[in-house]
């Protein structure tokens, strides 16, 4: 048997709670940086939210981006943005906006660009989002995110005591803020699929936290005399191999997507990839570390609602 990763399944005894001072500083800095980045740089909203057009075209030859920019620059359009795609330079993404924000004008741009470029290109994708739909999608995205966070909180509140729900929510907000901060920093395309990626990340992050909390609660009942910090440490160590294993498999899956999944899914895969890392970090150093502020035993209720029959 080639159990080269057997070491992952070994028992550990790492003192995670020792370094919380440093990680508090790191988390706080990350959040502050994220907020600063979002306020200063904003997001690179894709046309899903800002409205406008996006065309992906391919040519049999290498495309001269500057020449094409000149050609299209003469047209009566706003916010023209050309971006080369792929390795061999035969593909390009064109983004543009109409001068007036109405649907008819938007539609006209596609024809203008097609006429200006001629028929030598393959039009691989054409997206047009009118300003009205863009606003609606933006609204839906915000509503979806808020509802997902509320629903997850409600679920945790139902399953655990309030300190846990509080900790999970802080971890969740930490992960989302830092992730969108990163998207803002790199000015990555913020589109509908990004929102989907962020919500998946939220699901994963809380998933990880829940598994840790489950163990903490179990140990609270099992080791009634143990000091709380030791107990938190022990709980994290108990499930550390699981944290690493699941983290790695999910990371592998998203990495495969990031590398081989094609350009369309790149920012999506990146968000998930990053989400797994930050989600794993936060379930230990944000959500669990947060519990150290409370006396968990005092509020530990043996009769806590438990619909699934815990041990």
């Amino acid at each position, binding site marked *: 048997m080639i*159990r080269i990763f057997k070491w992952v399944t070994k028992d550990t005894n790492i003192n995670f709670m020792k370094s919380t001072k440093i990680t508090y500083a790191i988390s706080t800095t990350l959040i502050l940086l994220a907020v600063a980045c979002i306020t200063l740089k904003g997001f690179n909203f894709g046309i899903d939210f800002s409205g406008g057009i996006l065309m992906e075209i391919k040519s049999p030859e290498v495309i001269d981006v500057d020449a094409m920019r000149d050609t299209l620059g003469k047209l009566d359009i706003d916010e023209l943005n050309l971006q080369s795609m792929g390795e061999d330079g035969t593909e390009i993404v064109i983004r543009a906006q109409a001068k007036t924000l109405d*649907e008819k004008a938007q539609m006209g741009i596609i024809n203008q660009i097609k006429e200006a470029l001629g028929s030598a290109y393959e039009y691989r994708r054409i997206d047009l989002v009118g300003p009205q739909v863009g606003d609606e999608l933006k609204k839906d995205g915000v509503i979806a995110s808020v509802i997902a966070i509320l629903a997850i909180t409600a679920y945790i509140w139902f399953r655990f005591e309030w300190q846990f729900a509080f900790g999970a929510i802080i971890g969740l907000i930490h992960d989302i803020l830092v992730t969108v901060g990163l998207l803002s920093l790199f000015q990555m395309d913020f589109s509908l699929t990004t929102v989907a990626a962020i919500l998946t990340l939220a699901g994963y992050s809380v*998933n990880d936290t829940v598994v840790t909390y489950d163990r903490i609660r179990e140990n609270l009942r099992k080791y009634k005399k143990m000091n709380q910090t030791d107990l938190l440490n022990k709980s994290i160590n108990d499930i550390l191999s699981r944290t690493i294993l699941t983290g790695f498999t999910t990371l592998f*899956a998203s990495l495969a997507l990031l590398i081989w999944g094609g350009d369309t899914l790149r920012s999506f895969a990146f968000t998930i990839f990053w989400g797994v890392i930050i989600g794993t970090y936060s379930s230990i150093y944000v959500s669990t570390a947060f519990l150290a502020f409370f006396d968990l035993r005092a509020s530990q209720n043996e009769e806590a609602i438990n619909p699934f029959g815990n041990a």
Partner: protein
Amino acid sequence: MYKLSRSRVITILAICAAGIFFAVPNIMPNKDVLPSWWQPINLGLDLQGGSNLLLEVKLDEVLKERMGSIEDAARQIMRENRIRYKSLTSNENGVKVAIENASSRTRATNLFRKIDEGITVEDDGNGLLNIHYSDAALAQLKRKIVDQSIEIVRRRIDELGTKEPLIQSQGADRIVVQLPGLQNPEYVKTLLGKTAKMSFHLVDSAARAADAKRGKLGGKYKLAYGEMGEPYVISRKPVVGGEDLVDAQPSFQEGQAVVSFRFNSHGGKKFGEATRDNIGERLAIVLDNEVISAPVIQSAIMGGSGVITGDFTVESANDLALLLRSGALPAPLEVLEERTVGAGLGADSIEAGVTASCIGLAAVVFFMVAAYGLFGLFTTVAVFMNLLLMLGVLSLMSTTLTLPGIAGIILTIGMAVDANVLIFERMREEVKNGRSTRDAADAGFTEAWSTIVDSNLTTLVAAIVLFYFGTGPVRGFAVTLAIGIATSMFTSVTVTRLIITAWLNKYKPTKLPI
């Protein structure tokens, strides 16, 4: 003690077999011969290529027009009944009439009510009458306009011969049009962008356009313009309208492309009479408020058919004939959103998705075997089974697989082993606590269960929210994620348990290889 009852084993195997059975069509070479209940997964437009259009029916413009004619009717009524009024205005919401005399106002109210079904007249107490449709009538009217629009859109698209178009309403005033395989939606948008209201009007050659512009026209005539902006003074009331057309075809006349048309008997009669009475006059053919041409009437046209001449190319004659055949849209349409993916990109996306899935799968399998050895191998069986079950459920539910949907599958592969990891870790602990091999294996499954449910439910919550608020591809992602969570919970608990039980029974090991 560690035993699975026969009925449970059969149930588990039956579910797996059903999953495989429904997944099979996806690898069959000839999909057309399969029965409708045994089909492969539908590919979304982003994978098979095609165009997705979201159209808005401009109801306001129709309502404005409708209120305009109610305004005309009200004016007529007041004239006929000698009711004095101070002002009369209309917009898309209704018509407002100011009548000072109270008894005239009551009389007018009763008369106005008869203009159309569903009309209500309200007195605001300050001498102002408000004529509008009741909420129910308005909703019905809007519904009718949207339904009619869908019908006309369908007819126009059917004329193009696109395979399996999907046309349906969305919300109160929107239409979704999905055209698989279509590469050039510009043409479709041009076709749908025209209401194609056609009518024939007599031209008053005596009136000078300059006078007309100064507003010196009587109520019977109005000003219209040709393609080049040349003015025509035409009768306000059409001789005959496009609704009486039964057929239109492109053809040639003296080497020039024209559109020949045929009226129904009612339209043919009116057309015949008008041409008979106005020989030597010009007849304007008006399409969407633009005069296409205004030929001189040479002789009475009694047969109910004729030709439209004009500055046509073969294509434009063809288009006009198509539009006239399929009928006029009751309201203008506007494209709110368009998503077109070329077949090339779609095929590339599928390829990329399959590559990423295979590599992701291989990495996960390698890692699990490297960490757990034999039990990792058992997990591999569960992971493959999960993949097959997912495909089976997706095929059975005839959901649409989109590119983000493929991403959902890949992610599920990665996350699905979580349950197995939780179970194996639990077993390891139980062994450490001194339990016997079978007890430990058993406890691994039962004790990990509540954690597995807890952790999967949070992701499921995110998937459900995404499903409700997402559109198109994102919704596809939510569906595969949700299905993946359900099937992976099944396979990682039951399938691995089945294998481990069988293994324990056969080899009776004294130690778990955890």
